[in-house]
């Protein structure tokens, strides 16, 4: 039987290298993708997600098991993403990030298509994702993290509150404002 994340964390605290390798194996893709969605930059996502694993290795002994391991680990990751963005904010203002969609993001109103609508629908979905990325970049770090934790990781408002160190009600406000802001940005696009 596969050891749980919590068991692996205990073994990592005792400096078990195999347990660390297994933990990284388990979470690297999700951590990298979440960081990439928050940061909008693949190189930064690689660095920050690796840093999160290093923090995990160094502070595994501090995981007290009161919350789920994933909540605890994503708190480390999201905090590192937010710190990274705050540090780089001045630079981002001077050199805005290029999105995968480039400058050809279309000018039509936002109408997310279904992914089940065949190749045409898939193309439209890709187009709407290209428009979402720059809009996501304009949200505050906490709104972006809250919205992405909910949609990508399936976290509840309570779990988002644990990650962002705020109340469940505040987490709901972050999600609501983030989505309202995205709607506004996409409508004005």
């Amino acid at each position, binding site marked *: 039987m596969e050891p749980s994340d919590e068991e692996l964390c205990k073994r990592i605290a005792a400096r078990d290298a195999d347990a660390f390798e297994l933990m990284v194996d388990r979470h690297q893709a999700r951590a990298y993708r979440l960081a990439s969605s928050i940061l909008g930059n693949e190189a930064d996502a690689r660095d920050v997600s690796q840093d999160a694993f290093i923090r995990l290795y160094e502070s595994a002994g501090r995981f007290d098991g009161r919350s789920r391991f994933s909540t605890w680990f994503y708190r480390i990751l999201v905090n590192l993403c937010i710190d990274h963005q705050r540090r780089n904010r001045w630079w981002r203002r001077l050199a805005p990030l290029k999105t995968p969609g480039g400058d050809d993001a279309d000018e039509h109103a936002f109408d997310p298509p279904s992914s089940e609508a065949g190749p045409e629908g898939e193309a439209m979905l890709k187009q709407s994702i290209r428009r979402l990325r720059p809009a996501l970049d304009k949200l505050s770090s906490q709104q972006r993290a809250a919205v992405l934790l909910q949609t990508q990781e399936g976290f509840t408002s309570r779990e988002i509150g644990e990650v962002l160190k705020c109340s469940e009600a505040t987490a709901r406000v972050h999600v609501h404002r983030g*989505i309202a802001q995205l709607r506004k940005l996409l409508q004005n696009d």
Partner: protein
Amino acid sequence: MAAIHPETEIVPYLRGELSADERARIGAHLDGCAQCRATADASSAILSSLASVVDDVRDPDWATYRAELRRKLHDAQESRGRVSARWPVFGWPSMAMGAAAVAVLAIAIVMHRGAGSVPAPGVDQLELQQELSSTDVGLLANYHVVEHLDLLENYDVIEHLDELGPGDRQNHATQS
């Protein structure tokens, strides 16, 4: 319909996070409120597209990723080892206590100097103080925005307070 729109509960409603009672309450509100139904439809569309954003992320070469991670972990442990080797007796707690002692000493010296004769401010100094005071009063123009802010929720508003126009101030003050 009801004047209070349950805006922050619409996404939890869509995601099935609410209790049965809350769900029934929001469902009843949505039945009678076209504005909230439109918000729910639009939010639902955004949520489904956001879920697809993750599929658009290209995975790195995991072997390279892991090799980099091992190297970084090794470097981190090595630098930690160097620090503890350099400060075998005086670890971080001792250094922090030392820094605190220096700070206390500095405060004591400043207070000792300040306790003596405090010269009356000259005319030039008074003018400068008045000028500074009037600048401080200018900051109070944003007070009615600040007094309604929740620090956690409005970090960005606080950070960009000086960029708010008069209309924005009014909006933030009334929204809060």
